[in-house]
């Protein structure tokens, strides 16, 4: 049965981690162990080595996307890609999207280089609509202040962008990734084009029930982000609280409905 991780990351030789190859291998082997059939991944530039992770230079954006394209060629069904761009460089971002989506990437990754409700994100969202791909947006669950190292957005700010682009599916990143997830769920509950990615190291009791109550099964997407153990834990928990057909929707059917056709083997 397919299992699509909508929020994965890989590393590369030019990144900040010396153990990049071990971590990539570990992600693939842990994924195999729990049955992940597709890691939909992004690489955020050089992961801080030559420009900040959340403010990647244009050169690092290309470097990271090229590394991901190489991994996609190496694992053509197992690894699918989001094109990561920095919206502060509009022309470069649009060119990079055309290049990477043309080479087989299936979505767009926006991290925290520019607030989600900023007008500079509109051309990126327009590109998503033209290419008919979803946008995975890094979100801080209820940002009450400025956090160092990123221009983080929260659910309200992503919601503003989603209202301006109702035809684009937005994936609200890592509901378990830190912050007040209850605030996020309230902010996007009525936005049908915002999907909740369940990834993150947070495994709070009540969080999955709150997602079900706020947005329903049809807008929940399974994912891991940095920790596959917590992703597996949430999957095991969901097996106990939703029906088998609903679990299928969270595991892969919802993802298959917002990514381009035939993005995932077996779906």
């Amino acid at each position, binding site marked *: 049965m397919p299992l699509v991780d909508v929020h994965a990351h890989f590393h590369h030789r030019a990144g900040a981690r010396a*153990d990049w190859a*071990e*971590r990539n291998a*570990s*992600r693939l*082997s*842990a994924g195999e*162990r*729990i049955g992940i059939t597709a890691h939909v991944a992004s690489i955020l530039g050089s992961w801080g080595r030559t420009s900040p992770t959340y403010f990647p230079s244009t050169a690092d954006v290309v470097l990271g996307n090229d590394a991901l394209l190489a991994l996609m060629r190496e694992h053509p069904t197992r690894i699918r890609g989001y094109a990561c761009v920095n919206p502060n460089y509009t022309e470069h971002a649009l060119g990079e999207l055309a290049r990477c989506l043309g080479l087989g990437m299936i979505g767009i990754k926006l991290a925290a280089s520019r607030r989600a409700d900023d007008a500079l994100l509109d051309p990126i969202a327009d590109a998503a609509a033209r290419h008919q791909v979803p946008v995975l947006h890094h979100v*801080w*669950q*209820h940002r*009450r202040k400025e956090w160092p190292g990123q221009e983080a957005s929260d659910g309200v700010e992503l919601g503003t962008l989603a209202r301006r682009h109702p035809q684009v599916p937005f994936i609200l990143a890592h509901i378990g990734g*830190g*912050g*007040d*997830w*209850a605030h996020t769920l309230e902010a996007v509950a009525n936005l049908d084009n915002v999907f909740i990615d369940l990834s993150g*190291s*947070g*495994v*709070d*009791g*009540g969080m*999955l*029930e709150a997602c079900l109550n706020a947005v329903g099964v049809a807008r929940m997407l399974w994912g891991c982000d*940095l*920790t*596959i*153990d*917590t992703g*597996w*834990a*949430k999957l*095991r*928990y969901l097996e*106990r609280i939703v029906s088998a057909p609903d679990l299928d929707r969270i595991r892969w059917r919802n993802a298959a409905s917002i990514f381009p056709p035939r993005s995932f083997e077996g779906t």
Partner: protein
Amino acid sequence: MSPRVDVNAFIGEYPFRNVPGVTPQALLFAMDRVGIDTAWISHLTAVFWGDPMSGNTALYRIAEAEPRLRPVPAVHPRLDGWRTALDEAVRRRAPAVRADPTRWGMNPAGAEIRALAAGCGSAAIPLLLSVRLEDSRQRHPRDGTSELEPWAVRALIRSDPSVRLMITHADRDFVEQVHFGATPDEAARIRWDICWIWGPPEDHLAQLLRTVGLDRFVFGTGMPLRIPESSVAKLDLLDLPREARDAIEHGNSA
């Protein structure tokens, strides 16, 4: 099937958000769901009371009614009667006693906590301390409590050679700062709950088992604030030999 003991579970409401599964019955249901035989339980609500020891009576009553739940009573060393509370914990064969000094507005390695730690050491009962209860990024705006910090654990373990500590909700960096900042004898008197340590694809838990030692880690979940499937899943992903798994899941906490 070897027994699985959770050293880090709670009963009672959490004041900052609605958490499901806070009753003893719900806790037992969750334990059955993931194959936990015995849980050490703290009184979550009482952690926030002016006199957290006043929750101990309920804790003992719950444990008497359900032998799979073992009480971890709170002992507040600034309040009258703390030595009596400690004596009662020993008499009732509690597996540990609990203190939350940062929530109680105390220096976590000050004279009062050191007195409690020494008292626990003399009574041969571990003192359980939590680094945090939930992610600091999601704290309620009115929850301004500081987290327990590594320096305090180093200070406590050095304060008396009889002290034994059980630390819950610590991450890899915390464990390493204490372990490698302690002598081998000091470090050997600390047990670490695994609930906050990252598993694959990161190597945090695998590395700690190698560098700090398999015999220092115990199974804990933090439920119901956290779903217990997480602690089971991270061990499952490590594919440990049966004897290693047994040590973490019950041997090291015995």
